[in-house]
C-alpha cells in the first residue's frame, strides 16, 4: 500500500484543495460583482459619468458576466491575481512583499505557542487540580480573555519603554537598517542564511514581543486540549496496561502523549490558520510589515484584486496546514490512515 497509497491520497487531497480554491474564487467573484463595480471608487468623488463609463469599458466590467468569469478564472489559473486598482501594482508582487513577514510572525508565534502549551498541558495532566494545572489554566484563561493587541501594548510598555529590554515597535529591524539579502523574505531566516549574525540577533529581538503576544493570546486552546487529551490518555486502559507490564514511565508517557497528539494537531492547525488571519491588530501595534493592514485596507477600498488574492492565499494556507496536520495524524495513527482508504 505504501507509496501508491500516499500518492493517491495526496492526489485526492490536492484535487480537493484545487476545487475548494476554485469554489472560493467563485464566491469572491460573485460577491464582488454583487457589490457593484469599483469604477466610481477608483475614480474618486469627482468622477463624471463619462469617465466612469470609459473606465468601466477599459476594465471589462461592461462584458457579460460569464465572459468576465472566464477571463477571471483564466487569469487565476495562470497565477495572475490581477492588478490593484489602487496602487496599479500586480497583486502577486504586493503579496510577495508582505506575506513573508506575516508568515514569519505566525510561525514564530506558533512555535512559541506550542513550546509553552504542549509541555504545560502534559505536565498539568499528570496531576489534574494540582498547582501546575491551576497556574497553567489561569494563564490560559488570561491569554484567551485579553485582546491580542492590548496584550501586545502591555508588552511594549513594559519591555520596550519601561525596561528597555526590547526595541521600540518599529517593525522587523531598526529604523533605516538594511534587511539581509532577500531569499525567503523572512528577515530572521534571511539573516541566518546570509550568515549575518548581528542582523539575526537584532531581528530576533524585534520578533520576540509580537511572537510572544500571538503565542500567549492564540494558543491557550491548545493547552486546554493537550491537557484534556492527555488526562484521557493517562486514564486509558492501554496506559494502565503499559504500566502493568512494567514499561518504564518514559515509555508510558510517550504512549499517552502520542495518543493525545492527533486532536492537538488538528487544533494546532486551526490555531495557525486563525493566527495567520488574525494578526491585523498585532501587526499594527508592532508596525509589522505583513499582510494584516494590506488586507484591511484593500477591503476598505473595495480593491477587488487584492481582496481576492488575500482570500485565496488565506484559504490556501488553511488547506495546506490542514493537509499537513492530516498527514502527520495519518503517520501517527493507523486508524486515521485507514479511514482514508
Amino acid at each position, binding site marked *: 500500500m505504501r507509496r501508491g497509497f500516499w500518492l493517491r491520497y495526496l492526489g485526492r487531497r490536492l484535487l480537493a484543495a484545487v476545487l475548494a480554491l476554485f469554489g472560493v474564487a467563485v464566491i469572491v467573484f460573485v460577491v464582488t460583482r454583487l457589490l457593484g463595480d469599483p469604477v466610481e471608487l477608483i475614480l474618486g468623488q469627482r468622477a463624471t459619468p463619462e469617465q466612469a463609463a470609459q473606465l468601466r469599458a477599459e476594465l471589462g466590467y461592461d462584458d457579460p458576466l460569464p465572459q468576465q468569469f472566464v477571463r477571471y478564472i483564466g487569469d487565476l489559473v495562470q497565477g495572475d491575481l490581477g492588478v490593484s486598482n489602487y496602487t496599479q501594482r500586480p497583486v502577486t508582487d504586493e503579496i510577495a512583499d508582505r506575506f513573508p513577514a506575516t508568515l514569519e510572525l505566525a510561525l514564530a508565534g506558533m512555535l512559541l505557542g506550542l513550546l509553552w502549551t504542549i509541555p504545560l498541558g502534559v505536565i498539568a495532566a499528570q496531576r489534574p487540580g494540582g498547582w501546575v494545572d491551576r497556574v497553567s489554566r489561569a494563564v490560559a484563561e488570561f491569554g484567551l480573555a485579553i485582546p491580542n493587541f492590548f496584550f501586545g501594548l502591555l508588552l511594549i510598555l513594559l519591555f520596550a519603554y519601561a525596561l528597555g529590554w526590547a526595541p521600540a515597535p518599529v517593525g522587523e529591524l531598526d529604523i533605516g537598517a538594511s534587511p539581509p539579502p532577500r531569499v525567503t523574505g523572512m528577515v530572521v531566516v534571511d539573516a541566518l542564511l546570509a550568515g549575518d549574525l548581528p542582523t539575526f540577533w537584532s531581528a530576533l529581538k524585534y520578533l520576540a514581543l509580537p511572537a510572544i503576544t500571538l503565542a500567549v493570546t492564540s494558543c491557550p486552546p491548545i493547552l486546554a486540549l493537550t491537557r484534556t487529551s492527555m488526562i484521557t490518555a493517562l*486514564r486509558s486502559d492501554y496506559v*494502565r496496561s503499559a504500566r502493568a507490564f*512494567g514499561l518504564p514511565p518514559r515509555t508510558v508517557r510517550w504512549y499517552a502523549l502520542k495518543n493525545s497528539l492527533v486532536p492537538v494537531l488538528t487544533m494546532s492547525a486551526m490555531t495557525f490558520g486563525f493566527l495567520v488571519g488574525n494578526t491585523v491588530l498585532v501587526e499594527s501595534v508592532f508596525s509589522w510589515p505583513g499582510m494584516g493592514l494590506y488586507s484591511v485596507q484593500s477591503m476598505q477600498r473595495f480593491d477587488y484584486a487584492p481582496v481576492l488574492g488575500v482570500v485565496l492565499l488565506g484559504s490556501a494556507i488553511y488547506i495546506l496546514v490542514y493537509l499537513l496536520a492530516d498527514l502527520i495524524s495519518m503517520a501517527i495513527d493507523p486508524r486515521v490512515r485507514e479511514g482514508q482508504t
Partner: protein
Amino acid sequence: MSAAQTQSRSVLAGIADDPLLEISGLVVETGPARRPIELLRSIELAIPKGARVGVVGESGSGKSMTASAILGVLPNGVRARAGTIRFDGRDLMTLPEREMRRIRGGEISLVSQNAVASLNPLMTVGAQIAKVCREHTGVSKQEAWTRTVELLDALGIPEPDVRARSYPHHFSGGMAQRVAIAMALICSPQLVIADEPTTGLDATIQAQVLEVIDGSVKASGAALLLISHDLAVIRAMCDIVAVVYAGSLLEYGPADEVLNRPLSPYTQGLIRCMDPPEGEIAFIPGRIPEPGTLGAGCPFAERCDRATDACRAQQPALRQLRPDHWVSCHHE
C-alpha cells in the same frame, strides 16, 4: 483477623505452606487522608504456586482494585494504607519502584477485560508484545519478534507473522484477547492475573478464550488469578475460589467446597442467582454499598436475610469452619 494482620501472615496461610502470593490485611483507600474512603477494607488472599484462584464478586466489590494493588498500579489518588502483599518471598508493598517494574509483566502479568482498549492503538500488536519481552528479558529485537510470533501461533492466531504487524483495532474481541494473553505470557511469569478476560465477548468466543487461557497457563506452569463476576466461569476454571464483597473477603476455599457447600449467605445468594430453581428469577435484593458508607458491621448485613444486631455491630472475622475453607460470617 487483627492478629493475622500483625503477623503479616494471612489467616489463609494454612492453605499452603509457601503460597506464591499472599495478601494480608490489605486496606486501599482514596480521598483526603483525614477522611479517607476505604475501597478495600480487609482483603486476604493466598495463591499457592501453580494454583488457579478465582475471585468472584459483583462489580464494585474490589476485585479489580485488588489486582491493581498486587501490580502496584493503583489509579491516581488511590493508595494502599495497610497490609502486606507477599510474592515469592518479597513484600511488594515495600519494594522499590524499579524492582516492582521488573515484576510487572515479567513475573506477574495481566490480561485485562477489554483487550483492544488495553493495547496501544498506535503500535502493531507484535511490536507491543516484543517491547514487553525486550523490557524484561533484554533479548534482541529479532529474538523478541520471533518469540512473539511463535507465541501468537501457539495461541491459535492464524498467520501470526502477518497478524503481528496489524494494529489492535484490526482484531476481533476474541483474537485481541489472544494477543493480550500472549503479551501476558511472553515473559513466562509465575502469576497471570486475568481480570474479567471474557466479559463482553460472545458466549462461543468466551469459551474459546477460556480454553486458551486454560491451556496456555497450564502449559506455562504459571499460577492464575482469575477475576470474574461470573461464577460459572470461575467454576469452570479454578481450583480455589475467593468471594469478595464491598472490599472484604467473605469466603475462601477449594472450588468444590465453596460452590457446592457455601458457608456465606452472600455466596449462597450468588450461587442461587447463577442456577435458579426452575421457573424462578433469583436475585439478591438491594445494592452493593457505596465505598465509604459502611459502618463497623458485616458489609453484607444490609442485604442479608439472616442479619442480626451482632452482624450490624461488628464485622465478623475470617474463620476456618471446614478444612481449607474460610468464611467471614457470624452464623454457622
